[in-house]
């Protein structure tokens, strides 16, 4: 089965996500925002001991669940206080929309194949790709977020020119 690969090396520098999404219940939906949020909480978050983000939220919308932070879309008012509070820049302001976006990874076989994964085709920077299981094994810096989502993490060492030991 194919998986969706998000290349965070490209994404994390992107000023504004502009992909289209085939998720249909909420037109104008950009499923990738939801994915990036999920990626942020599961991969980038440092899991601080006293969770400054949780403490900063005026509405108790953030909560630690199973080790990661989760945002309740029903309580969040998109004030972005958590974003300010996070010392590691995990929660980017643009990941906190008031009306939550949704990505179901095109799982529901609701569409013709050519219409699926429009996000992959519409990312102008080529950050998204569909990959086979075999391919994944060969690549470096990969993180599995869930069964269908893989992330190519940022190679910070290479980025800042630090040689690996």
């Amino acid at each position: 089965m194919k998986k969706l690969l998000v290349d965070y090396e490209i994404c994390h520098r992107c000023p504004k996500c502009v992909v289209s999404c085939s998720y249909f219940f909420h037109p104008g939906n950009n499923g990738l925002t939801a994915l990036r949020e999920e990626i942020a909480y599961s991969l980038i978050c440092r899991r601080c001991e006293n969770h400054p983000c949780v403490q900063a939220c005026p509405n108790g919308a953030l909560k630690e669940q199973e080790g990661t932070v989760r945002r309740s879309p029903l309580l969040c008012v998109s004030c972005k206080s958590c974003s300010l509070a996070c010392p590691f820049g995990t929660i980017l302001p643009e990941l906190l929309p008031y009306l939550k976006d949704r990505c179901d990874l095109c799982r529901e076989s609701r569409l013709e194949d050519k219409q699926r994964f429009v996000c992959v085709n519409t990312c102008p920077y080529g950050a998204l790709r569909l990959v086979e299981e075999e391919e994944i094994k060969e690549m470096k810096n990969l993180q599995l977020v869930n069964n269908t989502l893989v992330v190519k993490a940022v190679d910070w060492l290479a980025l800042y020119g630090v040689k690996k030991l």
Partner: protein
Amino acid sequence: MEKKKKVVVPIGPYHPLLEEPEYFALYCDGEMVVDVEWEAGYNHRGIEKLCESKSWDQVTFLVERICGICSTSHPIAYVNAVEDLAKVEIPERARYIRSIIGELERIHSHLLWVGLAGHFLGYNTVFMWAWKYREPVLDIFELVTGNRQSYAMMKIGGVRRDVRDEDIPVIRKVLDELKPKLEMLTQAVLDDPVLAARLKGVGVLTAQDVKDYGAVGPTARASGVKIDVRKDSPCAAYDLVAWQVITCQEGDVFAKAVVRLLECFESIKIIEQCLDNLGKNKGPIEVEVREIPPGEGIGHYEAPRGEVFHYVRSDGTNRPVRHKIRAPSFVNIPTFRASCLGQTISDVAIILAGVDPCYCCTERMLTVYQADNRRKIMDGREVIRLCQEKTEKLREKMRKR
């Protein structure tokens, strides 16, 4: 009899009888109504569509504005639907508060109706008196919720504001003062011979009509159909207090008036019991709802005019995928076809009013009666068809004017 001329009396779209825009065309033979036609859409605001672009929480405020009279019934039905979807149980204190707000609304709405019905009958004194008695109820609302209309009290998982202890005696006092006045009003309506002449036997709706059209609320109960969502499917605190469903058998406008007036007393009873319990029960007023899971839910509630029905579907984000609203007037208004025909013009006004139709909610949806098809339904006789074509033309002309 063949070439009887028919006059079309348009009521609306802007007609003082209807505080809202609506178009009724009565086909009349002399003073006799032979057909009713109505056209809606003047008030259509596309609320169901708007709901899809608002968060679950915002939708409570939007549905509140479907209509200002049932302005808390829609939110109650809506939160019921969402709670059904998410399987949320609300705390007991919240249940009492919901019932209090719902019943206060019923009182103010029924009083409003009595007043307007009086106004339609040219009984302006009744109008003024009923509305005067209604004011203190609005005062309670202002005291408890901060607004006279559109109370913003309902919230998924409970209520938004608590009823303060110091407000309880005030509410009781107002209700105590209201009771004798209501009694007086009821007596005045029951005893007035002119009113009886005007209302009894007028616009009768049978129990079968009720079933066929799916009519609800006082419109159904006045015809002896004992349905009341508050009893049948108790939400809020309706199963925690003692009260009765009021029914009448006659199905005429008079019966509808009686049902409404007597219901006010039941409402007062409910509120008083709820207030008693509020004193004893100091729990929380809401549970935290963090997420709405995917799924679908149905909620309904007995608004002053009958059952409001909300259906919601969620995909797990924070806004509904589909929100269907069915307001009581939407099923009650079609009963005009059964109750208006053969009545005189001057009765139609009060028959229409008898249902307490409000177009705001109905109008969110689109409904029209078109003359073309109506003709066949009427009797199919060729002559009449021609006649009506003529009236239709006349109507067109008037529309253009």
